[in-house]
């Protein structure tokens, strides 16, 4: 509570010291808050002190669970088990060897990390609910093992933990504990804040938003999921170990499934994904029963009804949890922001804060790589970057979405794949980029070669890493990340330093709007901006082949023209090869070298783009150019023949 206040003021002061002067007043507030925090154990009564200590302990556990649920979007129902594992590691090490705290606590964290690794392993294969279920199994197993240890060592009431000693200093006083626990909670907070800034942290956010989209830009899902489990579990067991020392006691009854639910509720009620939320949630969930108890005792309830206090707490807790889930999934933090916004709207003095836009020189792109010029035109079809031969894709083993399709994309060319809705264009693109297995569709025959390497059967992230990068039709950006974060989650490993600088330069030059919007949530971007962000994200992967799915979808014609021209420029400047899938045939043919036209899964026409543009039949059927009825019939006849 006091700790939270201190932290909030601290954060605010930190943020504002850069933005505007006024540092001095903020500084004084900061010192005052610190003084209040230091004095806290001596001001409040023992009950409140104990409550504050428990909240500090719980916030460490809640921050740990927030990593899994809030950031990585992974489900764990084994939180009580991990707290228990930490506590029992301490208990057993003291019982067996009389180990000191500086050994037991790191050992507990290590135990947590090991369990986290083992529990996380199924995440290689399992997703969502199945993963939750394996963590539920962990719960029952740890509770059983703890119980076994207690019964076999005649410790049926629990293991007694002595006051921990660090050299001559013995930690026994609750006031001393307050400083230790607040420090530990602050350390956990700082750790969380920094964790989110790392590549791993951002990869988790990407994972949470969209598994598949994250793998499309080359994020290795398994490793990051496992990392989330290990880090979260180690932190949780660390909290469990501290709890054991603080409570002087370890007993298996303390680690019920309800404890897991309480921690899940802390994250949910506070606001999943929010660091402040986890702390506020911990405070709320720990303080709530005490508040209910206080209310009941002040209401002069007859003593025989006291047995119902627990049930009232239980029901109230469930209602709150359900209420937040149903009505305020953003938790208390979001609620506070919303209420604050409403309050601010009422104030006449509310002023708009002007955002500082980072200025950046906007010069022309300077090419570092001379070899690029060699790729400008499509020439020989003998060595193709992408070679699709006889591709057949069927849905549920029955309907053919793509039927013996063969297309070739020479290096350096722009090739368009055209056709009406349902012609099989997107299916083809998905087959190339490895997205098919997520639906009921399967490649039943044919091959897809990219740079001589067979692509079919490869996971989407492998394909992206090999250099064929997709700009999807829908869900093309991570809506809950900022523009900057969207770009920063793209792995850096691929291009060399020079090349990467050139790519960044190109993005800054050709997508200036992204610079302006870099702090904005990508979910708030317009359709055109989203498309640009998606293209920029794909470019950062340094693609050799850029697969663009329905660039024109939902965009104004003028914007489509502009983006198409941009693709042409990028092709030239960055030596790209582009496969363009488009319903808007006219826009695509304007920049393409060669085009294929699909109809109900089959190739019906192909040729150089200029020829197709001039072709009357193509104009009529695919470009929407009106012609006389007779010539329409003729075309139909021609087609049948």
């Amino acid at each position, binding site marked *: 509570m006091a700790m939270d206040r201190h932290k909030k003021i601290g954060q605010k002061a930190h943020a504002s010291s850069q933005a505007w002067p006024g540092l001095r007043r903020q500084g004084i507030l900061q010192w005052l808050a610190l003084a209040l925090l230091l004095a806290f154990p001596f001001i409040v009564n023992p009950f409140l002190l104990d409550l504050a200590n428990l909240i500090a302990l719980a916030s460490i556990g809640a921050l740990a669970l927030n990593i899994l649920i809030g950031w990585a979007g992974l489900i764990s129902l084994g939180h009580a088990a991990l707290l228990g594992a930490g506590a029992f590691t301490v208990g057993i090490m003291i019982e067996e060897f009389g180990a000191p705290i500086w050994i037991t606590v790191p050992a507990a964290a290590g135990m947590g990390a090991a369990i986290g690794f083992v529990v996380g392993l199924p995440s290689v294969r399992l997703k969502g609910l199945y993963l939750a279920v*394996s963590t539920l199994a962990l719960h029952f197993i740890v509770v059983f093992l703890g119980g076994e240890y207690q019964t076999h060592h005649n410790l049926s009431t629990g293991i007694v933990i002595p006051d921990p000693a660090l050299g001559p200093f013995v930690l026994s006083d609750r006031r001393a504990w307050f400083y230790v626990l607040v420090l530990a909670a602050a350390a956990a907070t700082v750790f969380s804040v920094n964790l989110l800034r790392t590549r791993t942290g951002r990869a988790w956010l990407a994972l949470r938003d969209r598994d598949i989209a994250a793998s499309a830009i080359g994020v290795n899902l398994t490793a990051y999921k496992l990392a989330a489990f290990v880090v979260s579990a180690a932190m949780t067991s660390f909290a469990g170990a501290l709890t054991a020392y603080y409570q002087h006691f370890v007993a298996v009854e303390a680690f019920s499934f309800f404890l897991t*639910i309480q921690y*899940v509720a802390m994250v949910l009620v506070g606001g999943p994904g929010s660091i402040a939320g986890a702390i506020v949630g911990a405070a709320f969930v720990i303080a709530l029963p005490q508040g209910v108890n206080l209310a009941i005792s002040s209401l002069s309830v007859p003593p025989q009804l006291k047995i119902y206090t627990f049930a009232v707490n239980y029901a109230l*807790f*469930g209602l709150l949890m359900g209420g937040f889930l*149903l009505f305020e*999934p953003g938790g208390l933090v979001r609620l506070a922001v919303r209420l604050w916004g409403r309050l601010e709207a009422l104030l006449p003095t509310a002023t708009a804060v002007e955002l500082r836009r980072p200025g950046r020189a906007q010069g022309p792109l300077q090419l570092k790589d001379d070899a690029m010029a060699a790729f400008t035109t499509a020439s020989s079809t003998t060595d193709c970057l992408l070679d699709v031969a006889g591709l057949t894709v069927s849905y549920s083993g029955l309907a053919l979405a793509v039927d013996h399709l063969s297309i070739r994309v020479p290096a350096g060319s722009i090739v368009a794949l055209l056709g009406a809705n349902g012609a099989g264009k997107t299916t083809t693109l998905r087959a190339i980029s490895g997205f098919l297995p997520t639906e009921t569709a399967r490649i039943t025959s044919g091959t897809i070669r990219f740079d001589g390497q067979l692509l079919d059967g490869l996971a989407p992230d492998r394909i992206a890493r090999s250099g064929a990068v997709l700009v999807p039709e829908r869900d093309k950006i991570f809506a809950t990340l900022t523009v900057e974060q969207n770009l920063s989650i793209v792995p850096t490993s691929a291009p060399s330093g020079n090349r990467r600088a050139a790519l960044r330069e190109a993005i800054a030059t050709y997508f200036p709007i992204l610079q302006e919007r870099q702090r904005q949530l990508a979910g708030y971007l317009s359709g055109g901006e989203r498309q640009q962000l998606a293209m920029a994200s794909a470019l950062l992967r340094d693609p050799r082949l850029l697969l663009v799915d329905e660039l024109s979808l939902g965009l104004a014609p003028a914007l489509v023209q502009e983006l198409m021209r941009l693709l042409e420029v990028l092709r030239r400047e960055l030596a790209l090869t582009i496969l363009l899938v488009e319903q808007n045939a006219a826009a695509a043919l304007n920049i393409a070298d060669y085009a294929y036209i699909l109809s109900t899964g089959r190739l019906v026409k192909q040729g150089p783009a200029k020829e197709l543009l001039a072709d009357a039949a193509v104009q009529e059927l695919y470009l929407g150019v009106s012609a006389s009825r007779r010539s329409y019939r003729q075309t139909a006849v021609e087609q049948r023949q």
Partner: protein
Amino acid sequence: MQFWINVVVLASTYALLAAGYVLIYRASRVLNLAHGELMMLAAYLAFSIATVLPKQSLAVIPLTLLLAALIGVGIYYLFIRPMAGRPLFSAVLVTVAMGIVIQGLVVLVWTPRVQYLAVLLDIVNQSHQLAPGGAISTLDIASIVVALALFAALAAFFRYTRIGLLMRAAAENPLLLAQRGIDFHRLYAIAWGLAIGTAAVAGVLYTTTNRLEGTVALIGLKAFPVALVGGLGSLAGALPAALLVALAEVTAIQYVDPLLSNVAPFVVLLAALLLRPWGLFGTPEELERV
């Protein structure tokens, strides 16, 4: 002999509860972690109805089932449908919250006292000697017969009735069904009703045989591994899975350690997750849909 009787009796309870998990999962892709609590709630409702209509089990049981089914439909429309489009885990947590509220309410409404439904329903639970080393009680026989009958009825329902067929279609591709002009939410609600109805059957049988108190909800959680081992989308898988889990549990209790009673189903579950995560009768595609 007694060993195998114990296995089959336990399996019948598990199978009844697992059917509820599967029905709900197939319909709404939600894991109902309040299934045990809802089973308990149904048993308490039976208890209240029986206090009004003492010794008339033929009236009490159908009324309880009807009430439970209505509760299931209500839960779908009130709590689950609004969660559509939200992360799946959120919907699961809503059921967790529901379970906690039920736990609290049961104590507030029915007090924490242990109750005996058999006495109120005037059911005499006789023991029958089947063989020299094996006895079975009347209620245990009832549990086995009811479980088998219910699975047969459900199989027929999904095979021969229009609603059953629609429910299968909705489980497979709700979007397509909606495109054909059918409100799949109604079908989902029916599935929830059926599921909570079966939970009520299990609840009344289980608490009449044993005691009625707040802790019986745990068996609901223990039955969950059965549903998963059998394949979350597969009713047929629930029967062999129930036998498998019950066998593991009874073996563990009898030959290893009675404390393993709560752990055994989850050990089987972990083994299943490692070897065949889509379950005995499920398909690997099921994993991708979660």
